[in-house]
């Protein structure tokens, strides 16, 4: 497979995805290399509170005199990890459920989908809070909760895709050539059904960053004294009167991260769905050089 080549082509083909991908890559590198780039421990109190921006403390210090840059870098670690764990759990639960429901149909489908409906009928964050209340707080439990909250929509999506794919000619053809049904599921149905799930999962990474921040903000996620964007935002929000700029580092970090994941998902959707990608390709070509006007009377071809 030339999957790597395809991936590279896609990332480089489109300015938006290139920007989003490089931003995410930069955040990931900072998060992984946190001990090298942070300069301070994220939990050590090594200065006065609210020193403001200085060479010693790039983004100042927080209410307990901890370095905000260090906390931001380590917080990125927690937030990214949290996002990937949550989406991993959502996909890990949702895809098999959707696959079984869609492929088996009948009462299995009915039972699984009613369970999924039940989960979908709760507001997500409330459900996550309820699950965390049962599991106990902490980053891992919070992410399990978010993963469970996200899994029904993945299951729904996967089921719909399986239902469509199951009726495709190549599935019927594979049956008529005597391929065993497990093979047909693994080889034909899953690869053809999974694309929208990949796109949805990319969007979900952004949502998971938000969910982690929200849960940490209300105190159910990352626990004192460890940093995450949500934790930082909460402590900064408590001291807005003393240090009004304090909300910007974690706030902007959350916003940019979510924006980057969304842009990536958007561009992925455009690339993977044939209709939109054709339109975009035509649009891009038209931008590059004006199309020769086929109308001799000068009627403008510029209708979107």
């Amino acid at each position, binding site marked *: 497979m030339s999957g790597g080549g395809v991936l590279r082509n896609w990332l480089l083909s489109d300015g938006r995805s290139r920007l989003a991908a490089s931003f995410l890559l930069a955040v990931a590198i900072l998060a992984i290399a946190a001990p090298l780039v942070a300069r301070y421990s994220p939990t050590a109190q090594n200065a006065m509170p609210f020193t403001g921006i200085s060479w010693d403390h790039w983004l100042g210090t927080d209410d307990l005199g901890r370095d905000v840059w260090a906390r931001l870098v380590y917080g990125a670690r927690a937030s990214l990890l949290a996002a990937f764990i949550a989406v991993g759990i959502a996909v890990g639960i949702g895809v098999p459920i959707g696959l079984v429901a869609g492929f088996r149909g009948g009462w299995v489908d009915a039972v699984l989908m009613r369970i999924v409906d039940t989960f979908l009928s709760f507001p997500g964050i409330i459900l996550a809070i309820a699950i965390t209340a049962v599991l106990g707080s902490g980053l891992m439990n919070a992410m399990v909760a978010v993963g469970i909250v996200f899994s029904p929509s993945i299951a729904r999506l996967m089921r719909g895709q399986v239902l469509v794919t199951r009726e495709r000619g190549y599935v019927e*053809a594979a*049956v008529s050539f005597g391929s065993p049904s497990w093979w047909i599921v693994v080889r034909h149905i899953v*690869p053809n059904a999974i694309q929208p799930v990949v796109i949805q999962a990319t969007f979900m990474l952004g949502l998971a960053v938000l969910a982690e921040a929200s849960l940490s903000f209300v105190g159910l996620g990352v626990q004192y004294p460890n940093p995450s964007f949500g934790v930082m935002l909460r402590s900064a929000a408590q001291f807005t009167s003393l240090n009004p700029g304090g909300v910007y580092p974690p706030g902007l970090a959350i916003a940019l991260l979510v924006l980057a994941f969304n842009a990536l998902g958007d561009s992925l959707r455009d690339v993977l769905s044939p209709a939109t990608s054709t339109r975009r390709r035509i649009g891009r070509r038209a931008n590059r050089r004006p199309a020769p006007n086929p109308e001799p009377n000068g009627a403008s071809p510029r209708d979107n």
Partner: protein
Amino acid sequence: MMAERPALVVRNLEVSFLTVDGEVQAVRDVSFEVGRGEIVGLVGESGSGKSATALAIMGLLPVVSSRVRGSAMVSGVDMLALSPRQLARVRGRDMGMIFQEPMSALDPLFRIGDQIAETVRAHQRVSRRAAAARAVEILGEVGIPDAASRSRAYPHQLSGGMRQRVMIAMALVSEPAVLIADEPTTALDVTVQAQILGLLRRLSRDHGTAVVLITHDLGVVAETCSRIHVMYSGEIVEACGVDEALLAPEHPYTSALIQCIPRAGRHRQPLHSIPRRRGSSPDVRPSGCRFLPRCAHAAEICKAPQPLLDLGDRAVRCVRHDQLALPGAVERVPQ
């Protein structure tokens, strides 16, 4: 007749579908046989039960919502009596199927060579390499130039005709005794259609494959088949050699179908069509001849149930067949 045992013998095939309104019969009393190396046409308009017949023989109808009765013997084994597991083993090995849409019958995500190799490996214990080599070999045989490099192409990189060739290659790679071709050329343009039909003829002759060619195009039948079974409303209404059917049809429906073919030389004449809507919707069928509401030759006697009358070398489901002089493809010159 044939000395050896026919490759496919279908007897008293009956297919019905379970709907919310109860059981609806789609195919009734269908019997035919196909010898080795023979191509037999199954002709009829949409909804006449052609495809239901094919899918029933292949065991591809949904188990929960359909009922199949009768028998379909392929090399002495009744396909309709097999368990799903046994069926999966013989499908592809003893019988293959070509579908109407070569665009959708190939998985867009995999190279065509891999898809053919998959079919090989479903039935034979061979190495990946040997299966791939076999795929290239069969691709060459179905007339794909430069088969070795084309086997690494994805379906979207091939034209419609090429894709149908790939489908044929997939269906034939395990050399099944019976091949069911469900409208294999409907989605193709006319020149490609002629090539594909020629290919089917050659492969059928070379490998002794019995082919059931399902189509609504009498031209395709005339070009390809030795015998023809005309279906109407789930029944075979006429079964005979292709020349007999085209020159001297015995059933009014066969004759009407032939008249519907537009032909050159008839200036400014309206195109012929069979009058009234298709009266074959399973729930509003007349008890007698099913073609009765649309037949130009209907009489009182036609309201009685119609058996398939055996006329020796042909069979027809029409009591009035010997009273009618029906036009065929060649105009009778008035004398």
